[in-house]
């Protein structure tokens, strides 16, 4: 069972991604910002993939990825950033922080599922 953790401060975005993933048979965990997500990770939630927004209150996505890499069992977990067309520099920052790749908003269902297959072996 592949679990995907979604981190985004937009409830709309969470809802849309969650419905795509749930329909495709993934288990989904959501968090409204990096802090909440870190909390879940520290409480033993162990996703096989994390998809996080970049711009969020409390803890931005890049800081979150950097922190999440240090969480138990998250050393080798694929992490993707949700970015917009204009956020080229953010992508590089994210990679330095430990992100595996990125998605460009708005995310089409096929694209999302394709990328998951690409970065999570056996997903």
């Amino acid at each position, binding site marked *: 069972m592949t679990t995907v953790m979604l981190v985004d401060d937009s409830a709309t975005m969470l809802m849309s991604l969650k419905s795509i993933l749930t329909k495709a048979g993934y288990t989904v965990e959501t968090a409204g910002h990096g802090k909440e997500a870190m909390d879940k990770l520290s409480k033993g939630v162990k996703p096989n993939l994390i998809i996080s927004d970049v*711009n*969020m*209150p409390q803890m931005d996505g890049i*800081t979150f990825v950097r922190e999440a890499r240090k969480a138990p069992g998250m050393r080798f977990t694929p992490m993707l950033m949700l970015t917009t067309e204009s956020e080229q520099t953010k992508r590089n920052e994210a*990679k330095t922080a430990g992100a595996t790749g990125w998605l460009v908003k708005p995310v089409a269902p096929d694209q999302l599922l394709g990328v998951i297959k690409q970065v999570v072996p056996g997903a």
Partner: protein
Amino acid sequence: MNPLLAQFLAEAADLLSQVDEGLLELERDPSDPELVNEVFRAAHTFKGSSGLFDFPELTRLTHAAEDLLDAVRSGKLSLDSGMTDDLLAAFDLIRGWLAHVTTHERLPATAGPAGQSLIVKLRGPLGGEQATVNPDVAAALAGPVIDRAPDWLALFDPEWLEKTATWLSSTSATMRFVRFTPDQGCFFRAEDPLHLVSQVPALAKLDLIQPFEWPPAEEYDEYACLIGFALATRAARGELDYLFRYVPDQIEIVELNGDAIHRYVAGEEPPQPRADEAVVAAVAQSHTENLELARDAHAILAAAQRSLALEGSVSGVRLSAVARSVAAAAAALGVPVDTADPDVETLKAQVANLLTEVRPTPADAPPTPPPPPPAERAPVDRGRADDPGGQVGTRILKVDQEKVDHLMELVGELNVAKNGLTFLADAAEEEFGSRVLSRRIKDQYSGLHRIAEELQAAVMDVRMLPLSVAFSRFPRLIRDLSRRLGKTVELVTEGEDTMADKDVIEALGDPLVHLVRNSLDHGIETSADREVAGKPPAARITLTAVADGDAVIVEIADDGRGIDPAKVKHKAYEKGLISEEELETLTDSDAVDLVFRPGFSTADQVSDLSGRGVGMDAVRASVEKLGGAVTMRSQLGRGTSTRLRLPLSMAVTQVMVVSVAGQRFGIPVDLVVETVRVPSAELGRVLHQDVVVLRGEVVPVIDLARALDMPWTPDPAADRAILIVSMHGQRVGLLVEQFHREVDVILKPMEGLLAYADEFSGTALLGDGLVLLVLNMKEVLSLAARAQ
């Protein structure tokens, strides 16, 4: 309306007010980076979410606004009042559009031109609208560009290269060659290079780039990626760019036709700049790249050695091709060799020399510099002395919520430490025989106790917010929805200044919205119907909040058509929620309560307004999660009122401590009705269920030890201790071992292994240092039901 769109509209309203507020503040203080950031973030989120719907004008306009804000944020532009005007105008326009979307689910027809003129204005300071030339399209029109063969082509078997070149020439086709050199730390970004390679479409050939020298087994770091890949594929350039888009810096792709490969194999290609001077320069430039190059060079040399050894007599073009790659590799290593007129033996010796001479040991690898520590980003509470909009006479401090939460935690710990003193006092008397010391400790305790209580009250007070925060969204919501439904509704709010804990206020939002929508949609009649019924044409919805001791009561009342108990009963019966007998016997008030049953509200009554996939059962569940209760009263033809009773604060919970099988548990006091002791003989059994008769009422009794799967055999002679709790108006007895006192505790959510144990709602620390598990009665009861 589709739920996603409804969600977006609800979120959009918040975002719009954030943007407006932020922009106005920004105009006053254009230099505040936090403000710019906030506005940018709101605009950004807006754009992201709007892209989910087919509103291209909206996305384009928010995009333009976002770009302008981004330029301000990065300091490329400073915000002037002209830009602020344009931004405000843009978001006003959006607000208008969204109102239109709310009623028509599409943008107004004028959106295109109106948006475009603002986009032009917003893009003005950024140097106008960008011309959009797609370089890919241009490239595609020009046809594939044939690259020069790179020196790493030597990684492939020369014979295979020749065959392939011939084939490509005769079919005038091309092939893409990829060199993929992952960096050592790539596993720590969860990259798996081989997994990527396995996804290369139409892979024709795969070869390894092995490390210059494998480290000895005992020093081998299994998490450092030391290998790379060279591959040939018929996949299109675009497919490869897409596949490798996350690792562009680890990838080199060349497009080759038969001629290019032939020339390479024949050694006719003029040396690539990269192969000598440029390479050497690059080596000097970066140590990391040096390693990578050295790895390549080594791989090439190894390949050369292999082919020289294998083929015995290598000659002609094949030999000169090998010689060329050896020369290039040697140059890359900074040890140029002369291979102008090669023979097999010399070449073999040279390769062997190079391989032994130039060996970077792992120690050569520079430690990758640790990433710079992230800049501390402590939230800055700016002084507001310069803020002309501030209130005169009151100084308001804006404090991060987390700080208040932390304070609350500390108060909890203080309470625990304080309670420890009573145990110390007992010990002083019992163990050390000093009654005087014991009394003095108790005196100290009561002083400390008073201060701790006041401190707790003060902190709780800081967390209090007026109910007006929760009510503020309703005037607009009711206005919009009632117009849409063609109903006339007047909203009356009372007691908005009643205070409650911020967590309670926040959690109240969704249930309230649901109840108000329900009222508007189902409860309230059209004006015409109302007049027929002899009511005033304008309906009235009343939102009331009153404090009631430790609780706050919020009531939503309408003077609509009310609930018909007969209809509700009938519907519940049709859905199989009640038995035929209940259909006959249920009282009217019990019938109204049926709307809270899971599964009651379903498709046929889901409207585009209230039908958001949650029924009244969800409302009840979310209120109960807060430790509250929901009741509904309705009079047919007169109206319905729903009453939510919530604890004023969720921070401190009063629990009754009981013990079962030697273990103590907490039960929220508001569920407890009474404690009774009955002789064991008075426990009866009805239909496999233990019961006790209390004042003529038969109350089912659950053995708590059994429900929690704890071994315990009660002393048959002793009286039974039974705790009577009330859930949804139903009384249930819990058989326990012993009652203890009631305590105030700070409930902490479950962590670690127990995080998924639903039968507990949290833990609390007791004064004697013991951790108390607080039961989630709802789950415990359903556990007990399953156990039977």
